[in-house]
């Protein structure tokens, strides 16, 4: 189905993840160091990377940054700490999703499937009739996947871009976290609403606080009138 790179210095975890993904029909390569992960990613094109945060050689944050610098490749981070969601998802690193150890391989498998579905959807012909959306001073070019605000280009990760497109498509409409999870991430269960919050924060930091409005107790809405 897809080529997946699994990077974890713990051999048990890496092997178990690889076995699960192989059972799902993916072709899996396993490496145990940060620097060799970059070498492998450079040598063959992967559709997705499952990346541990603490790695010998080069830590997961740096690996993720360099992976994302090349081309947008979906990254699912594995971390031993709960409080790093913001750091991992966008503010610093730009990962697409994360799981906290000890995680369930079933959930990992589901999230990998969802991430891959999203990539597939993006590669396919754009279903949006309008390829350029203009909202106030914000211009979203869905074809070239570029966002500019007041003429300045804003660098968004793939996930952040999708989030902005979904919100801007219906300005003023309030989207619940669950709706966003389903629309952007493709998750059907309710887990990971924190993922949404972290990405919203990252988008606000890049486009300005007024770009997305928080509707307390409900969710988020696009904030720029136009």
């Amino acid at each position, binding site marked *: 189905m897809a080529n997946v790179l699994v990077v974890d210095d*713990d051999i048990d975890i890496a092997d178990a993840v690889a076995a699960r993904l192989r059972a799902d029909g993916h072709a899996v390569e396993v490496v145990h160091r940060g620097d060799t992960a970059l070498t492998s990613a450079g040598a063959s094109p992967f559709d997705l990377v499952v990346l541990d945060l603490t790695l010998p050689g080069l830590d997961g944050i740096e690996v993720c940054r360099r992976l994302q610098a090349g081309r947008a490749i979906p990254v699912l981070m594995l971390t031993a700490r709960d409080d790093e969601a913001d750091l991992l998802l966008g503010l610093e690193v730009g990962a697409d999703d994360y799981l906290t150890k000890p995680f369930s391989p079933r959930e990992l498998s589901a999230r990998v499937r969802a991430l891959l579905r999203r990539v597939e959807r993006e590669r396919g012909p754009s279903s949006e009739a309008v390829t350029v959306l203009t909202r106030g001073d914000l211009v979203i070019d869905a074809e070239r996947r570029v966002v500019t605000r007041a003429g300045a280009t804003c660098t968004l990760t793939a996930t952040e871009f999708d989030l902005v497109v979904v919100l801007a498509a219906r300005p003023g409409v309030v989207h619940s976290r669950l709706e966003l999870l389903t629309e952007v991430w493709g998750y059907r269960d309710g887990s990971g609403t924190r993922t949404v919050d972290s990405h919203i924060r990252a988008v606000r930091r890049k486009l300005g606080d007024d770009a997305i409005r928080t509707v307390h107790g409900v969710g988020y809405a696009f904030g720029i009138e136009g």
Partner: protein
Amino acid sequence: MSAPRPLDRLRSIKVKLAVVIVGAVVASLWAVIFGWQVGIRPRWLVLITGVTALAMIQFLAHGMTRPLRDMVRATQAMASGDYSGRVNTRSRDEVGELAAAFNLMSARLAEVDAERRVLIANVSHELRTPLAGARARLENIVDGVEPATPDQLAAVLHSLERMGRLVDDLLDLSRLEAGVVPLNRETLIVRDLVDAVAEEMTLAEPGLDLRVDVPAALAVDADPERLHQVLSNLLANAARHGGGPVNVIATAIPGRVRLEVADRGAGLDEAQRAAVFDRYQRAGATTGGAGLGLAIARWVVELHGGSIRLEPNTPSGLRSIVELPDRPAP
């Protein structure tokens, strides 16, 4: 805060109270005499005298009890886990001393609290990795993704053993710190100790290139079980962080026995070498150990009246050096 505190310089609360009382009495006497002379009616005179006395007390005693009120507030904050409260005072009496002692105590408590947080963070981090490995394997086996072969189950067992060791270390450290571990000292042949630890290490890490250089006659007065633990922690560190051969060298120096574990790994820089003995510090984000191994080693060695330090190895790597007195301290 800006109002004057005329009595701050007095060193005794008794003297302060005496000054306040005398001041109030003198002021009210003065008010009575003054009022009498200008012919104020006695009913009003009582009122004026009272107000004058209160004003004098307010002026002189200003700020005397403020540190106490601050302490009450800080103590209440501490009870709910906030150790940042400090009491500001320039007062030099017993209340001032109490405030200073209070500040010292809250600083110490904050330190201990911070250490405890670091320990919990490290331990939970270190528990999560083997827990994640075991869980992932077992879930795979349950779901039929992987077969339940002895190899797979051995990997789960290995993860469980890692968690068990971590829990043991934690218990050891808390016992050592509480000072309830008695040393069972005896004359110990260093060679026997090193051989026993080396055998265990080679079983655990078959690929390890361990080179032992210990004179056969060298003896030390120590608790064999505890010293075994120290050496095994040092060797485990060398095996984990080192690369290439690991040397164990023992030598007699006047009055002491020196035991050295040297690896050829990446080593640690000076700041890291100083930091690893702080309780629960780990060198960088490397895996394995919650930073308890060296803390335990230091406690044990110091209980024996010895010393432990880290030095860079040449051309690369780390030397862990333990020096123990060769006979019991008098």
